[in-house]
C-alpha cells in the first residue's frame, strides 16, 4: 500500500514539477519574446539604443506605491490584475459628470460629453495605459518597468475641464495628507506620476509650495514634459523638485512632439513614428494595456503598441524610480540627481535647442548596489 502511495506521490511530484517547469519556461519564453523593447533586450538580442536596461533588474524587497494622477484607471484590465490599490475620483462636483467625488476611480464612459466640449475617446484609456507602463503584470506582454510596484489611481480628468484645485487635492491625497470630505489614503505614494501639462508657463506658487513640502517628505514627482511640439515646459513639469520627462525615440532622438526646454531633466522612450530599423524596436511605440472597440462596437481589453507621447515616457521613469526605491526606499529627488552617472546617459543633441543637453534614462549598474 505504502509503495503504491509512494508511486502515486512520486508520479504527482513529477507531474507538478513538470507543470512548474513548463510554466517557468513559458513565462521565461514569454519574457524573452514579448518583453517590451524599451526595457532592454534579453539573450543575444541587440537592445534599442534608448532602452532603459531594466529587463534583468530584479525588484528589491520593498513594495513601492506609485500614484497615477490621470483620467482614471479601468481596474478590470487583465494586465493590471493585482497591481492596483484603492484610489479616488478627485474630480470636483462642478466638473464631474457623476456629480460628486467618490472612490470610483474609473474614467468617464466612452463618448461622454461635457456641454459642447469634445474629448477624444483615447483619453478614456489614458490612465490605464499610463498605469500599465509603471506596473503592468506581463499579461499579454504588457510589462511595467516594475511589476512589483502598486498603483494608486487618482482621477482628475473627465470629459469636463480639469481645475487646479482638483490637482492640488489629488497630489495631497496621494501623499497621505488629509483632504476635506475625502477619506484618508491608506496607501500613501512614494512616487507621484503626472502625465499632464498646462496651467501657466511659470509654476503656480501654491503648487510649488505643495511640491516643496512633499519633496521634503521624500516623495518623488515625475511629470510629462508635454506634447506641445517643441515649446517650453508647462506646469507641473516646470516646477522645481519635479523630474520633467521628455520623449525620445528608440534611437535616442528627441521626438518632434516633445516639449523642448533646457530644464527637461530626463528623456525616456515615448513612442512615435516607426523607424526603418529591422529590429523589434523599429515599431517605436510602447506596448500598453488599453481598450478598443471590437467588430460589434463593444469595448474590450487589449494590449497594443500604441503609446505615443510624453504621457508614456513619464511612467517609464516613474517605474524606473520605483524599481530603484524597491532596493533603497529612503532615496530622494536629490539622490536621483546625484546619481546621474548611474542612471542617465547622453541622448542625441537637437539643433533647435542649443542649450539643451538631453539625457536619456539608463540603468548602468545594479540598482541594489549602494
Amino acid at each position, binding site marked *: 500500500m505504502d509503495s503504491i502511495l509512494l508511486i502515486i506521490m512520486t508520479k504527482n511530484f513529477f507531474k507538478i514539477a513538470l507543470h512548474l517547469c513548463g510554466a517557468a519556461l513559458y513565462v521565461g519564453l514569454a519574457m524573452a519574446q514579448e518583453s517590451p523593447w524599451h526595457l532592454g533586450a534579453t539573450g543575444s538580442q541587440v537592445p534599442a539604443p534608448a532602452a532603459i536596461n531594466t529587463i534583468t533588474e530584479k525588484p528589491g524587497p520593498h513594495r513601492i506605491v506609485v500614484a497615477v494622477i490621470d483620467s482614471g484607471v479601468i481596474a478590470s484590465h487583465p494586465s493590471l490584475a493585482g497591481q492596483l490599490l484603492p484610489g479616488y475620483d478627485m474630480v470636483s462636483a462642478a466638473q464631474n459628470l457623476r456629480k460628486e467625488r467618490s472612490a470610483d476611480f474609473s474614467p468617464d464612459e466612452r463618448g461622454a460629453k461635457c*456641454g459642447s466640449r469634445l474629448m477624444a475617446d483615447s483619453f478614456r484609456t489614458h490612465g490605464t495605459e499610463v498605469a500599465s507602463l509603471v506596473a503592468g503584470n506581463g499579461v499579454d506582454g504588457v510589462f511595467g518597468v516594475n511589476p512589483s510596484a502598486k498603483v494608486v489611481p487618482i482621477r482628475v480628468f473627465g470629459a469636463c475641464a480639469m481645475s487646479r484645485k482638483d490637482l492640488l487635492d489629488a497630489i495631497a491625497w496621494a501623499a497621505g495628507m488629509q483632504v476635506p470630505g475625502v477619506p484618508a489614503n491608506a496607501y500613501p505614494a512614494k512616487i507621484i506620476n503626472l502625465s499632464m501639462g498646462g496651467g501657466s508657463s511659470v509654476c503656480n506658487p501654491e503648487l510649488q509650495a505643495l511640491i516643496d513640502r512633499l519633496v521634503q517628505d521624500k516623495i518623488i514627482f515625475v511629470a510629462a514634459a508635454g506634447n506641445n511640439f517643441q515649446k517650453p515646459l508647462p506646469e507641473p513639469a516646470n516646477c522645481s523638485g519635479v523630474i520633467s520627462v521628455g520623449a525620445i525615440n528608440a534611437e535616442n532622438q528627441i521626438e518632434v512632439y516633445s516639449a523642448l526646454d533646457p530644464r527637461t531633466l530626463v528623456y525616456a522612450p515615448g513612442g512615435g513614428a516607426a523607424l526603418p530599423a529591422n529590429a523589434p524596436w523599429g515599431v517605436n511605440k510602447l506596448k500598453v494595456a488599453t481598450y478598443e472597440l471590437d467588430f460589434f462596437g463593444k469595448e474590450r481589453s487589449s494590449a497594443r503598441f500604441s503609446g505615443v507621447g510624453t504621457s508614456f515616457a513619464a511612467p517609464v521613469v516613474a517605474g524606473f524610480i520605483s524599481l530603484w526605491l524597491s532596493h533603497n526606499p529612503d532615496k530622494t529627488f536629490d539622490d536621483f540627481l546625484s546619481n546621474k552617472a548611474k542612471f542617465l546617459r547622453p541622448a542625441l543633441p537637437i539643433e533647435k535647442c542649443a542649450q539643451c543637453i538631453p539625457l536619456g534614462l539608463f540603468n548602468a549598474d545594479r540598482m541594489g548596489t549602494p
Partner: protein
Amino acid sequence: MKQFCLRGLTRAVLSLQIMLALPAWADTVWHCSRAPAMQQAVGSGPETGDLFALAQQDGADDVIQISVTDLIDVYSGVSVRLSGLPLSACFMPVNDPMTMKAMRDLGLNADVSSALARKSAIAKNNLYRITDESEMKACIKRHHPAVGYLNRAQVTEQLAPCF
C-alpha cells in the same frame, strides 16, 4: 561609370530640390476646431491659466481635446471619435512642403493619406483634401470636430492650436 556619376548627380540635385522646397519655416502647427459657443459646459469652467490637459499644452477649453496618437490614427484613415462624433482631418496636396513635414512628423507617408482622401469620397473616412492653406481654416471649421495644419499659430473663433 559615366552613367553611375550621372545617376548620383541626379539624386543629389533631387535631394537639393527637396531641401530647397522646404522653407526655413517648414514647421507645422496643428490646429483643432473649437466648439460653437452656444452650449455651456457643465458647471463653471476653470480660468484659462488653471487649465490642464493630458500631457498637452494649455489652450482654450472649447478646443477639441485630441492626443498625438489620435493625429497619427486619423491621418492613417483610422476612425477617431470625440464624445461620439467622428474626427475629420484636412490636408493639402502631397507635394506641398507643409504636408510633407506634417506627415513626416507623424511618421506617415503623405501618399497613403492622399490615396485615403481620394477613397474618402466613396467610403467615408473623414479625410478631406484641399488645395491650399487658405482653404485649411475653412475645412477645419466646416468639418468640426476637425484637425489640420497651418504654418503658424492662429486663433480664431473656429480654431486654435491643438497643443
